[in-house]
C-alpha cells in the first residue's frame, strides 16, 4: 500500500513536533495541529477536523504576526 500525501504530511508534522520547533512560527502552528489531532484521536476529545483546522489557522495567524514583528 503506497503512502499518501496526507500521511507523509502527518509524519512530517509529528517529526517536527518531536524534534522541537525552535524559532519558527510556521512550525509551531504545525505542532499545535498535531497536538489537537493527537488529543482528538487519543483521548476522544470531540474535535472535528474542521475545528482542528480552525485552531491551527488561528495559531498560524498569531505566528505570522510574530514573524512580521
Amino acid at each position, binding site marked *: 500500500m503506497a503512502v499518501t500525501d496526507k500521511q*507523509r504530511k502527518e509524519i512530517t508534522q509529528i*517529526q517536527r513536533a*518531536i*524534534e522541537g*520547533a525552535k524559532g519558527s512560527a510556521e512550525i*509551531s502552528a504545525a505542532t499545535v495541529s498535531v497536538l489537537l489531532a*493527537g488529543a482528538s484521536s*487519543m*483521548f476522544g476529545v470531540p474535535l472535528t477536523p474542521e475545528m482542528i483546522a*480552525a485552531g491551527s489557522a488561528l495559531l498560524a495567524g498569531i505566528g505570522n504576526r510574530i514573524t512580521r514583528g
Partner: protein
Amino acid sequence: MRVSVLALILTLLSGCAAIQFAENNPYVAAAAVQAATVKFIDESSTSLYRAGDVIAVAELTKEQVNTDQATTLSAVSDLVRGLVDWNSLNQYETLLLSSVIDSVESRLLDDIGAGLLSEQDKVRVNHFLDWVIEAAEMYKMRNQ
C-alpha cells in the same frame, strides 16, 4: 460542549507566551510521540496485539537502559530497531515508525549528546518510552 472545549484550548494556546510554551515544552513532543504511537497501533488489523507488542518493546528497552545493557543513545535506538519485525509492516507503517525512532533519537542527541548515558539522561530516555507505553495502554483500554 464542542465549542467550549475548543474555546478552552484556544484560550490556553493564544498569545506569544503560548507560542513559546508550545515551541519549548516537552509536552509537544509527548503529544506527537503519543499520537504517532496510536496511529501506528491503529493501522494494524490486530491492533490490540500490536498495542501489546509496542508495550513489550518499550518495557524491554527501559529495562535495558536502566540495567546499563544499553549505555548510549545509539545502542538504545539499535535495540528498538532490532526488536521490530519490519517485514510485517506496510510502507506507511515502516515510514511512520522509522521516522519516529529517528526523530526521538535526534531530539535526545540534541538534549543529552551521544556519549554514555548518565543517570539524568536515563530519566530523559525513560520519559519518551513512558509516553509510548501510556499511549498504547490507553489505546488498549479504549478498545477492549
